[in-house]
């Protein structure tokens, strides 16, 4: 049954640009981008509980690769290089932090985006000569939407596959108890590294795909830390341990933040902060699990 539903749903979603207005298409691209980011984030951070605050480091790096190469190379080639850059970055970060306790990883990821932003800024000013680049790629908004939709589908499909594989089982054991995992013979560092590299590669590709929307890029625009924080809260809100949790968290929160940043930019950070605290205290496993818990509780009462 689901082999029919999913392709049909995907085809329907792919057909939306033919009826949507330009504004609606822009919103859709943003929404699908965050579905991809949140799902890719949860691929690693969901089962392992290693909270990564570095989403924008990869997302921004992807966009910057396109900005640097768009005049010298064909687009598909750039995407390949982007994936390579993302995987390499993740390997370096992962090898140095994932062997240690989770808190070191969080701290490192907390500063990673800022570090990369400063390094690129330094490089652009001192070696390239000017800060800021243009992206002229022959891709329409529809093209971006389809690519991003494809990436989102791949991400969720890959997560479903990982969940059933030995890698997924290993990650869940690691997330529950690393000592038990180590005693069961699970190679901790290698498993965490594999999942982190996969997740980071998707994040980097998402940045590359979304980049033509910017046209003009400079480090301060591309490495906006809010992207990392939104990704985390969306995934947690929906439930980072569920296949569809991050996607279901991303859609309402994307619309809410879009509305807030347009109408109440001043209360934006306060709302974001309250949301984080609310999720941690009220829905530690996500809203989906919270609702299920409530229903189960009611059933037990009536039984």
């Amino acid at each position, binding site marked *: 049954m689901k082999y029919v539903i999913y392709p049909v749903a995907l085809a329907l979603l792919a057909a939306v640009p033919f009826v949507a207005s330009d504004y609606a298409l822009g919103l859709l691209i943003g929404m699908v981008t965050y579905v991809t980011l949140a799902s890719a984030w949860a691929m690693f951070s969901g089962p392992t509980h290693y909270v990564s605050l570095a989403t924008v480091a990869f997302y921004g790096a992807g966009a910057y690769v396109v900005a640097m190469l768009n005049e010298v190379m064909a687009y598909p080639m750039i995407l390949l290089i982007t994936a390579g850059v993302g995987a390499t970055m993740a390997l370096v970060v992962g090898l140095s932090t994932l062997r240690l306790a989770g808190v070191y990883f969080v*701290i490192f990821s*907390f500063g990673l985006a800022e570090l990369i932003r400063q390094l690129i800024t330094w490089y652009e000013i001192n070696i390239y000569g000017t800060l800021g680049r243009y992206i002229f790629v022959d891709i329409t908004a529809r093209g971006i939407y389809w690519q991003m939709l494809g990436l989102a589908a791949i991400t969720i499909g890959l997560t479903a596959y990982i969940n059933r594989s030995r890698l997924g089982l290993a990650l869940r054991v690691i997330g529950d108890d690393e000592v038990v995992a180590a005693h069961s013979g699970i190679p901790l560092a290698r498993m965490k590294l594999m999942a982190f590299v996969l997740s980071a590669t998707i994040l980097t590709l998402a940045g590359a795909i979304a980049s033509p929307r910017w046209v003009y890029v400079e480090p301060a625009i591309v490495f906006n830390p809010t992207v990392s924080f939104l990704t985390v809260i969306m995934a947690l809100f929906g439930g980072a341990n569920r296949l569809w949790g991050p996607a279901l968290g991303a859609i309402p929160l994307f619309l809410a933040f879009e509305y807030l940043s347009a109408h109440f930019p001043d209360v934006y950070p306060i709302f974001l902060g309250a949301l984080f605290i609310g999720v941690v205290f009220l829905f530690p496993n996500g809203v989906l699990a919270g609702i299920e818990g409530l229903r189960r509780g009611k059933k037990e009462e009536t039984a």
Partner: protein
Amino acid sequence: MFVTILILGLVLGGTYALLALGLTLQYGIARIMNLAYGELTLAAAFILVALMQGFGISPLLTVALIGPVGYVVGSLLYTVMMKPLVARSSGGKLDVDSILATFGLLFLIQGALLMVFGPNFTSISYLDKGVTIFGVTVALNRLIALGICVVVGGALVIALATTRWGLALRAVAQTPTSAPLVGLDVNKVARQGFALGTALAATAGATVAMYQTFSASGGVVFTMKALVIVIMGGVGNVGGALAAGLLLGLVETFVATAIDPGLTLAATFAIFLLVLLFRPQGLFGKA
């Protein structure tokens, strides 16, 4: 050149050391990884500026009074926000919960600061005249800041090492599970540790405000640097945090004057990476 870097580096490092001291107490004793630490620092900095500009209160008086205020705020924060998390979870789960909750707190405080004080950079000029030491001209306010850091940091190190109260804090930091066996109220000690950390954050923030320009969205950088220092010094290691803070001040000043000011954060991170790769237990810790 060398002496300049040494003196300016120590002055900067003194503030960093004080900043990191509070964070290492919070994580070491209360086991709360507080990502809103830099925002608490900034709040104190803004209060100092507002009191001076609004009521003409001397910054030195504010620095002296802001510590106790920070202690009370920290104590309340622990009771209201952190204690339920500690009661609910332990170990790695507490790390995740406290990181996410304080991350939310970060935005709450940042949002409040933005609404009250606006997004612009703020600074005051207070005792902004040069003093020459060993042929190097240093602003008087920076020297006073260093003095405050030495006095507060030194007093704390001595108190932790010699008093009964310090012994209780260190016992909980070392093995929270065994501390109740010798009659220690872990919850109370953890609250004290967290409150003390907040008091240090406030003192450091007020000190920073005396000589540095800052804005409401810059708290993350304070947190980041404090975190790097804490890990360099070894989590919960007070002496290590002081030494690592001074070291980081020296390195940053060296990179800024000798190589490029745009690369100071990169230098901080390079050190961080090296420490993680080769001495994850901290520069002064035992394997």
